[in-house]
């Protein structure tokens, strides 16, 4: 019980500490004296209800309320874990090719299992990417075909097609920007993004 109280007090201190930070910054802009300045910002906060800064701080407050509830906390972390697991899977492709390489196939199976294990209502965006070769339009199409190849494979493995969307980033989303062969290899890939 004491521990909980201590945590609560610490949390309140942290919250108040945080909420003061932006107002102090504002204060230094207006006047040099700290005592006067805090008063001035307090006035500003109450009078300027339409100020954009205010709406940002209320959003933050809402977020903190949600994290206190245990049920929501569990579901958020489960989603995050799922999103992380999805993001950790990267399927690589050969130069100028969009068929799935045999050595990449186990990853597709792993992906299908992962999606089937999580029956919640969500969408997965398959993002096709390319290396720097070729003109942009062809690269985009190549990226899209890479995304579609994995989408088709996932459907064959029993994944609900409604859960899958595809997009191509062409060469606009490189993970590696060095001009070397190991780098180009890393950019010829599919990424998977969780869209709640």
């Amino acid at each position, binding site marked *: 019980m004491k521990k909980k109280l201590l945590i609560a007090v610490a949390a309140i201190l942290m919250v108040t500490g945080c909420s003061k930070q932006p107002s102090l910054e504002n204060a230094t802009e207006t006047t040099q004296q700290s005592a006067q300045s805090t008063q001035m910002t307090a006035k500003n906060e109450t009078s300027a209800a339409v100020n954009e800064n205010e709406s940002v701080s209320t959003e933050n407050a809402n977020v903190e309320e949600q994290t206190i509830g245990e049920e929501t906390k569990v579901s958020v972390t489960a989603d995050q874990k799922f999103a992380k697991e999805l993001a950790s899977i990267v399927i690589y492709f050969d130069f100028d090719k969009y068929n799935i390489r045999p050595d990449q196939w186990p990853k597709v199976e792993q992906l299908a299992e992962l999606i089937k294990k999580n029956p919640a209502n969500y969408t997965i965006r398959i993002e096709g990417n390319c290396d720097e070769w070729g*003109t*942009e*339009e*062809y690269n985009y*199409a190549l990226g899209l075909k890479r995304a579609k190849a994995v989408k088709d494979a996932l459907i064959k493995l029993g994944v609900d097609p409604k859960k899958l969307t595809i*997009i*191509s*980033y062409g060469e*606009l989303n*490189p993970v590696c920007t060095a001009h070397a062969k190991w780098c180009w290899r890393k950019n010829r890939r599919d990424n998977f993004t969780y869209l709640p």
Partner: protein
Amino acid sequence: MIKKIIIFTITALFLFANELVITKYFNEKPKINILFNGDKNVLKILKMDLKVLDHFNYSINEDNNATYRFEFTYVNKKLSVKYFENDILKIQRIYKSNSYAYFPFLVHKAVYDINEYFSLPKAKFLIRKVIYSMLVAPKQANIYLADYTLSYKKRIISGGLNIFPKWADEKQNVIYYTKLGRLPTLYKLNLLTGKRVKIFTSQGLLIVSDVKKDKLLLTLAPQGQPDVYMYDIIRKKLIKLTKYKGIDVNAKFWGDNKVVFVSDRFGMPMVFSKTLNKGLIKRVLYHGKNQVGVDAYGDYLVISTRETNNAFDRNTFNLFLVNKNDDSLKRLTFKGQNSYPNFSVDGNSIMFIKRENFYSKIGIIRLNENKVFYYPLPKILQSFDW
């Protein structure tokens, strides 16, 4: 072996003959004298214009006994050009702008007008505006407006991925572009009024490849399958032009009744043509390991081909000019990675992207003059139109 030698000799003779024609052209250039007074940056642009135009035998601020003299004076956002013939003032032209930054366009117009004064071949590239998209960070590409030298630069669209800008009208007031959000969306933006109209959204891929009056050639993939489509802006009618299961992209109008496009239907990307009414599909160039980019003007095609086939090293991409009538082939570049060729509106020049170590350059080929000029760019250019 003898056959090979004969072919080689004929080719060499042909090349030599070509050179002779060029030399003759060079000697007949009109001789002019330029006197410049004003800002050093303005002079720099003037020098570049005359160099790239390559239509005059000129000297700047040095007497060369030319019959024609042009006196340029740039003061306070105003460029004045006096035309003299045998020391007699013939014309005075004044070019003004609201901002200092706009001066490259004043110089370009002044040089364009001198070119017109001598009734030399059109050089519209000087006064055309360039619209381009540039990657500024992963998943962030802005659209900019520039002059052909890319000295003047104005950011038009930012935030997220704004790609594949294309001029929508002859006067260069309206553009099409794709915004890659959750779904790719095609927009039409009027640069004068700022009015933005959403045309449509499509899953996967949405690119405007070419514009001809009210008709657009698009690459779309509503079911994840990239194909070439034609869209009528007025009637709002979409026609699917290709239906191959692989990749069909990058379509361009070629003459009145044909389109050319890039397809991997033979296992590698190659350029094909298709007649609009009969639907006959033909391969247009038998050269290179693959062909990834194409543009068309009149009877001509410019094609970017990969000449090496190395997955793990530098590949060479070169540009070739193809003539529909005699099937002749002319090599336009000789080394490096040259891609994204784009004809100027008068067909006399080709702008393209040259890449080197994750940096890009703009290249301009002056077809009649047989010359290429490059300007560096600090970041990767995603695409452009002029």
